[in-house]
């Protein structure tokens, strides 16, 4: 089974992110593997364990994104590829999908390509389905469990209404969610292996891709309006008294 996991590097979720002078800043907070993409790597490793094969982590990003790939290697991925090119500084999701599709082809294809649900920074959640569309492969989105049998992959999709079971012929694109299981921690051996790994860096020319100007562009950055929240603590002699006061406060808010 040949599996590719697409991961991105983003500022840590604890980071204090702000807009400053038209740029996004996060101080000295570390850059990490997009937390949703840890599920992509975890799901890929689970399938390799069940079926044999290899897991390749794939990322588009600057040189520094090698650290995110090393995290995937430390978790247990067999190898990693970084696509990096000055022309990729401004990429919308369709652009990312085209580049990922080209890189997937250059890797030699796969049986399954795993994605996270969305990025923490852009948060669009579009890239997996767009990559599937560019490749012409079926898309199994928001999978919480995976079963492979006779050239087909069946997943339970976690949707608003419950779980929907869908199957597709491989090769297929999947996006994975938390129900797949807690991402494993890098092992000591894994960290050692990752620190020694040389990660190939491919340019656009090497994967035979060109990118058109992005269709979706940012025109302005803003900090959200500060919410003045001063908490009013409700106290009382008994639970009943507290509840009575709290109920009055809630009703006075006229939100029911």
């Amino acid at each position, binding site marked *: 089974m040949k599996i590719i996991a697409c991961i991105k590097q983003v500022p840590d979720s604890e980071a204090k992110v702000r807009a400053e002078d038209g740029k996004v800043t996060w101080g000295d907070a570390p850059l990490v593997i997009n937390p949703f993409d840890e599920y992509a790597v975890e799901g890929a490793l689970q399938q390799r364990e069940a079926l044999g094969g290899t897991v390749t982590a794939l990322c588009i990003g600057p040189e520094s994104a090698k650290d995110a790939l090393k995290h995937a290697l430390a978790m247990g991925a067999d190898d990693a590829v970084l696509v990096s090119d000055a022309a990729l500084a401004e990429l919308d999701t369709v652009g990312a999908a085209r580049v990922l599709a080209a890189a997937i082809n250059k890797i030699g294809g796969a049986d399954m390509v795993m994605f996270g649900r969305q990025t923490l920074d852009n948060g669009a959640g579009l890239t997996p389905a767009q990559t599937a*569309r560019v490749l012409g492969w079926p898309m*199994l*989105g928001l999978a919480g469990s995976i079963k492979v049998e006779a050239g087909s992959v*069946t997943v339970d999709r976690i949707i608003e*209404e419950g779980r929907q079971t869908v199957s597709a012929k491989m090769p297929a694109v999947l996006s994975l969610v938390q129900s797949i299981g807690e991402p494993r921690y890098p092992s000591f051996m894994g960290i050692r292996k990752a620190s020694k790994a040389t990660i190939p860096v491919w340019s656009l020319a090497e994967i035979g891709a060109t990118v058109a100007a992005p269709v979706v562009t940012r025109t*302005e950055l803003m900090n959200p309006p500060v919410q003045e929240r001063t908490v009013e603590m409700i106290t009382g002699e008994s639970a009943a008294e507290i509840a009575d006061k709290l109920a009055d406060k809630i*009703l006075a808010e006229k939100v029911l």
Partner: protein
Amino acid sequence: MKTFVYIDHFKGEVQPASWEAIGLAKSFGTAVALVFGTGTDEVTKAAFEYGADEVIVVDDAALEDYRAEPYASTLSALASSSTPDLILFPTTARTRELAAMSAVDLSTGVLTDASKFEMNGEQLVATRPIYEGKVLEKTVCSGKPVMATIPARAFPKPERVAGKTGTLTKGEANPQGADALTTVQGYSASESAVNIGDAAVIVSGGRGVSNNPSLGLDEAATAQKGFEMLGELATLLGGAVGASRAAVDGGYITYAHQVGQTGKVVAPDLYIACGISGAIQHLVGMRNSKVIVAINKDADAPVFSQARYGVVGDLFAIVPALTEAMRKKMGK
């Protein structure tokens, strides 16, 4: 401006932000609702009653169950032939895929989770959250049609006018070769098929819901009792039950209920957090709620920093008392 509004439904149950999208489309000009699937008469009727000027119905066996590929191909074909300026979707599990794929077909882009729109000359500018809402951006799409998804409860729901009708058009399904690649095998409703994204009131529980030694039960049984208790309050207030990731990971409740970074982002009118500490990954999922109430026995819990009202106390005492008090005061 002509806007297509994709009415997102699952077996005839419509995601209500679809109606909000019709209202938004009307504020721009003409609203053409798209209803895909089989046996969708009720959905079509509702689309008219919520204000659609026209409804294009595509009723075809190939579209019986939602599947991303044939739905996207059908949408792309309709958009190519009747050239809307804008296609609006409610943000849901399905529409992110559908919009994503159609945007590839039509060489355009998608502005996801847009909570505000304005015109800059001829160009539509959308405001959307990035970095989990820590920052907002204004974005534009240079392709045509512009596609955008809107989160639940960001725009007013239009008044439903019983009996209102409009132009009904039949559209064609357009399944392509690659669309035959997926098959739907089945479906199971989550035990309480709630859509917390759309709830006006959410009563949420965290790890604290399993902490009541006086019950003399094990963790799982305690949590079950705890969540039943929260469920009672939620039902009384016409709301839904949410949860922290610790509660989901603990197996107290299913993932569909999870609020936060890896769960759902919600913005109800009232959010009651019970036994939730208020980690940043939880807060990003609920801090835009109108009124937040936090009940926690630890006075230093970070959740209080986001709350309008706070109670330091045992949720197993406060929640039932609150349910009682609300029941009396609401006359129920």
